[in-house]
């Protein structure tokens, strides 16, 4: 359903004389971190280390680290394969082996990779997991995905069922249920698989570290409230959430990454600069948008270019909240470690009900003073997509701001139609212009 890209995956610009993408210290740092985790995965068996596979929403990285397990995230592998334009053939491979053309392409990319020898995006082998930590958070497909993987790997699988916030709130029953599963099932299973005894103080330390990084992440995301925004909170945001959504939350590396990132963004703010794009700094911010839904990864750079070429900056996005809604105030709490992990899982974006999601988008449109909402509807992901047309209408009704709808897919290149997407975006930007002119005329009429 979700996840993040990395600076390492950024493709080269499409110009006659290719130039190096501008890399700031935080990008270099993230690239090293990602490479380091793939290195850990590639050498895990040789080093006698055990591997856990899990998902981005409901990712219990701090807990996984308590057992010295290496964290493998199949969604990230699918994204990395998408960015490297490898996912298409993997999806076809999975379909040849009986997967329906109708279902999630993350799953099919992952199963296709497995069928073709489990060579990871960096060309090195992905080890078979020792445990599948099925954090069933905000996405029905997760459950089937890991059942499918379990069938292949025949390894230990432990389910953490995270109830859905159907009524728009977290109840004590939900929290207690998750904590009990952690105590009774998840922790004993991870102890058994890893041979490492659980130490709650170790977990507390990791959670303390997480909270530090979370502060700086939120500061970075909220910097987009400035005009011009120093960041793009969707295309750039995908990089910013990388460490905290994946195998690094709770590590000093992640804290350091967010410290560096904050410094860089602060410098851009001080200089009144816009976001950094693959082709350099965006000099003029023309449109401020909120985006709902994940990006397309197979044509990520081309997709982004359609925005920055028009001076469009995404100032807030819901996708950057699928691995945690830190901007709504949640922080991992070392004083209540298991309860805090439960709260974290419950609050992930797609685990919130539709009215709650609409409220968030409305808040973003107002607080970030955006011109409108763009929905990128993803064929693969019903968790995100079902109901988005109602969300769009509701947002237009509540805010009076224009909204638009485009359709792509996460990692299936067959569902990215650049001409159609570009055409829709151009029409949308015209609509925003028209709305502005209309507002200008109305304001002038009011003066007279």
């Amino acid at each position, binding site marked *: 359903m979700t996840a993040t890209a990395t600076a390492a995956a950024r493709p080269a610009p499409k110009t006659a004389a290719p130039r190096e993408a501008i890399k700031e210290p935080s990008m270099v740092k993230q690239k090293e971190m990602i490479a380091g985790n793939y290195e850990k995965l590639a050498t895990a068996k040789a080093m006698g280390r055990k591997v856990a596979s899990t998902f981005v929403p409901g990712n219990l990285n701090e807990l996984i680290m308590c057992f010295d397990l290496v964290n493998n995230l199949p969604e990230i592998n699918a994204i990395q394969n998408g960015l490297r334009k490898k996912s298409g053939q993997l999806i076809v491979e999975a379909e040849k082996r009986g997967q329906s053309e*109708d279902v999630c392409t993350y799953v099919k990319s992952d199963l296709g990779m497995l069928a073709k020898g489990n060579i990871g995006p960096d060309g090195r082998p992905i080890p078979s997991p020792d445990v599948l930590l099925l954090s069933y958070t905000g996405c*029905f497909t997760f459950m089937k995905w890991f*059942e499918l993987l*379990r069938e292949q790997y025949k390894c230990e699988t432990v389910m953490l069922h995270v109830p*859905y916030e159907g009524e728009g709130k977290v109840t004590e029953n939900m929290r207690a249920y998750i904590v*009990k599963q952690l105590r*009774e099932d998840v922790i004993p299973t991870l102890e058994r698989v890893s041979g490492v005894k659980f130490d709650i103080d170790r977990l507390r330390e990791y959670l303390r570290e997480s909270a530090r990084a979370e502060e700086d992440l939120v500061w970075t995301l909220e910097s987009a409230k400035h005009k011009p925004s120093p960041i793009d909170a969707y295309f750039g945001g995908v990089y910013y959430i990388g460490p905290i959504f994946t195998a690094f939350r709770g590590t000093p590396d992640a804290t350091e990454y967010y410290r560096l990132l904050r410094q860089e963004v602060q410098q851009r703010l001080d200089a009144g600069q816009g976001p950094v794009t693959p082709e350099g700094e965006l000099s003029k911010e023309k449109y401020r948008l909120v985006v709902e839904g994940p990006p397309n990864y197979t044509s990520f750079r081309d997709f982004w270019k359609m925005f920055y070429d028009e001076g469009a900056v995404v100032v807030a996005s819901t996708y950057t909240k699928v691995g945690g809604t830190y901007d709504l105030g949640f922080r991992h709490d070392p004083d209540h470690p298991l309860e805090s992990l439960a709260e974290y899982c419950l609050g992930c974006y797609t685990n919130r009900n539709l009215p709650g999601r609409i409220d968030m988008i409305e808040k973003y449109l107002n607080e970030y003073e955006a011109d409108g909402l763009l929905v990128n509807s993803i064929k693969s992901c019903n968790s995100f*997509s079902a109901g988005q047309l*109602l969300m769009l209408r509701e947002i237009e009704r509540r805010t009076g701001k224009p909204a638009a709808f485009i359709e792509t897919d996460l990692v299936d290149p067959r569902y990215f139609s650049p001409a159609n997407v570009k055409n829709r975006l151009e029409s949308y930007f015209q609509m925003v212009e028209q709305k502005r002119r209309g507002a200008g005329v109305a304001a002038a009429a009011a003066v007279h």
Partner: protein
Amino acid sequence: MSTSDIVARCTGLFEDLNFVYAREWKAARPGRKVVGYMPFYVPRELIHAAGALPMGVLGGGDQLEVIHGDAYYQSYICRIPRSTVELGVTGRLDFVDGMLFPSICDVIRNLSGMWKIMFPKTMARYVDVPQNFRDDVGGEFYVNELNELRKDLGELCGRPVDDESLRHSIALYNENRRLVREVYAFRAAAPWKAPSSEVYLLMRAGMVLAVEEHSRMLGEYLEAALAENRPRRDNTRIVITGAFCEQPPLSLIKSVELAGCYIVDDDFMLVNRWEKANVPLEGDPIRNLACTYLHGSMSTSAKYEPDLSKKGLYLVDSVRRNRAEGVIFMAPSFCDPALLERPMLQNVLAAHGVPFIAFKYAENSGQMAPIREQAGTFADSIKLWSEA
């Protein structure tokens, strides 16, 4: 009463997209409430005990022209939510006081939130069920969820749901499920006497009729079907799986039968027989409902199977128990639960030497010729070449 009289009554209920029966039931006494629910399971006993009529909402079928509903969904989302929205926005569900959306997939889950926004006067509630099957973990969670639902339904209906009322409702549903199981067993034993197109309508009637009335109807059907002589054909006995949410058009079920298949088991309406045995009447009724869910309910792809070695065996069991010769995977297009589950179930069947085919449908599929050909070829190939 003959089977054709009963089937005519069921057909009338099935085709009535204005839900006249439920409207009349509600109008018959002031203060009555109707609570709708979607597939695959809700604890109907709680609705009944609150004094309300539980009413299954299974989309619009092939008779409803979907005009508004399509504006709410992308082309790659299944059809049942769009026809359900159509039923809602066209006022066909305007008498419904509450809607329950079970934990079956992300589409139905999100529809619960859409309903809250689109129909704010209707109580819309997502019904979560545990995926952890330990009494002290998932069981405790579900007991609390059921108590919460009990409170909400009591508030909706203006009277608290007490234990005695709930026990009474459980007893009525136990009896109903006993009869449902009996009809299924009868069909499996003599499918020529209980064609699936009839059994389907009979089970659909249970989605709208009051439970007492449906139980009477089931009893009458069994009696009538037993008494009637119908020609026995040399059909192939098959199990249908994957059709537990969006329903196939009736013509599709008839086409499969006409193609030479006796359907001896299916998962069309799981809610009618979700609990495999009686829910106990002694003790705490809520805990009994929860316990039966954990340890005595059917299997389907919306439910996690913690034990890899047991994965899909329910389907093999159904094949054996019902002496089926093959399985037809019949799933709605874009149905995540059915389509993601399918390859795993197919592997289990292959390992047990059970032949199968697969196709997709939508509730408004109109072209039956390809399905008839596929099902017919499957049936013939089993008859001609199976080892038995």
